[in-house]
């Protein structure tokens, strides 16, 4: 028997309204996320990949400026249409987010430890007193920060980009979420740090059985980390399936173009193939 999905998303759509006109940011997004699965959502800027992930817990402007339609079942509970105060208990606690720029996601005037403690106190009332600090240090330790006590007492500007992203992940972990949404977690980081962060995410999935929704524009980092992939273009899912299948035999021309335009080592060519070239050729074929 296939395991029950942790997250069941059906026909999810996001529409923004401004100046009386509607803009459909994404529509018809459907997928299942199993416990311990890493699902990658790949697409260009403006493809709707981030907005459909934010829509899960409605981290978006309030109605009528923004409408979320469809269904999001988290462990059987419908999230679309849930009142704000109930959603606030889902955000961070059951579905946690980390973003592209760890520097701007932290408050510069509080220490890392203070900010993680804030999340713990908000979402885990059972943790009190000195246990809060212990939880903070344990989660910093879990993301591979060598001196958790020292990092907890540091301010964001005292840490490097890679360390800050680890601290962000620690903050997400401290509340023991079921699903971690990682929105371009390594785009702002150096390649060597990118590799470390991706390895960290893979380890957390292995050790804690956490499910991860990995949002990226780069097929390169998907190949080594994700189980399944969803390719989005202009607000719609154009292809989805197991990573190995999609990477080796992409069906949609857009997917083929996205994979082809990644510059690879050891394959010097006169010109890099662009997405437009690819789409033009397949339209003629």
């Amino acid at each position, binding site marked *: 028997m296939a395991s029950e999905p942790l997250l069941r998303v059906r026909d999810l759509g996001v529409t923004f309204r401004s100046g009386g006109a509607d803009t459909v940011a994404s529509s018809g997004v459907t997928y299942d996320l199993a416990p311990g699965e890493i699902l990658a959502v790949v697409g260009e800027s403006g493809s709707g990949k981030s907005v459909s992930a934010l829509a899960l817990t409605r981290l978006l402007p309030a109605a009528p400026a923004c409408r979320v339609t469809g269904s999001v079942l988290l462990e059987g509970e419908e999230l679309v249409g849930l009142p704000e105060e109930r959603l606030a208990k889902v955000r961070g606690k059951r579905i946690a987010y980390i973003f592209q720029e760890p520097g701007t996601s932290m408050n510069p005037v509080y220490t890392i430890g203070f900010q993680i403690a804030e999340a713990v106190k908000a979402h885990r009332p059972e943790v009190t007193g000195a246990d809060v600090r212990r939880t903070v240090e344990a989660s910093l330790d879990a993301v591979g920060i060598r001196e958790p006590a020292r990092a907890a007492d540091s301010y964001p500007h005292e840490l490097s980009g890679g360390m800050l992203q680890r601290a962000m992940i620690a903050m997400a972990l401290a509340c023991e979420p079921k699903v971690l949404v990682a929105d371009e977690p390594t785009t702002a980081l150096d390649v*060597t740090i990118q590799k470390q962060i*991706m390895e960290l995410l893979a380890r957390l999935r292995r050790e804690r059985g956490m499910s991860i929704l990995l949002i990226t524009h780069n097929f390169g980092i998907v190949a080594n980390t994700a189980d399944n992939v969803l390719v989005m273009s202009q607000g719609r899912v154009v292809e989805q399936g197991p990573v190995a299948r999609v990477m080796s035999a992409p069906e949609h021309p857009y997917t083929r173009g*996205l994979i082809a*335009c990644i510059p690879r080592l*050891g394959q010097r060519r006169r010109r*890099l*193939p662009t997405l437009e070239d690819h789409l033009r050729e397949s339209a003629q074929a």
Partner: protein
Amino acid sequence: MNAPAPLLEVRDLKVHYPRPGAGWFRKAEPVRAVDGVSFSVPRGRTVGLVGESGSGKTTTGRAIVKLAPVTSGEILWEGRDIGRLSSRAFLPWRKKVQMVFQDPYGSLNPRSDILAILSEPLEIHFPEMSRADREARCAELLRKVGLKPEQMRRHPHEFSGGQRQRIGIARALAVQPELIVCDEPVSALDVSVQASVVNLLQDLQEELGVAYLFIAHDLAVVEHISHHVLVMEKGVVVEQGSPERILGAPTHPYTRTLLDAVPRF
């Protein structure tokens, strides 16, 4: 017979910054951002400069265009040291060396239209140019970088990241430079857009014979565009050579670490 001097030659360049916290009685060790870097850029060629954040690659590039102070060493332009000129004396060289910045959102004035952005370097370096000539030149530049001349009255926010980077390239080209320092020109762009900007840079080099110092952390892009590659770590060049050699058979452990970190599939 001597070979002609390269377009640009950098000899033992050092850029040191005082560490904050040093006082009258407490002399702190300076931050050695660039600590003895030597290389040359031949006319019409691309030299790739690779390294991580903090390796000194950006500071090296900025020192060449006089955006970072040179502590010691020489920056030779066709054999003449330009590293120590005053800003005023440097002006004729600023026309020859231009820069393209990493962040296409932060490097264009949001209040100016594209015509104003592209006209500014022309007003400084070609003050005799008439308004009509400047406009014609802007139209030509936009066409060169794959945009439409009709778009010159628009403002930066009306363009996508890739288009803005094309505008940044057009601005650098405006004064007909012989060298462009490109500081991470594609790393803020989607992978799908990176390819078209890299292709544009190569086409422009073929057409105009401009040389590039291409600073990046993406090894695959650097391998693709460069004729010669330098690897920097902690302010020094740890390895340099042809891209085939550096990326195919690296000898320095740091280069290998960088290579191992690139996702393969």
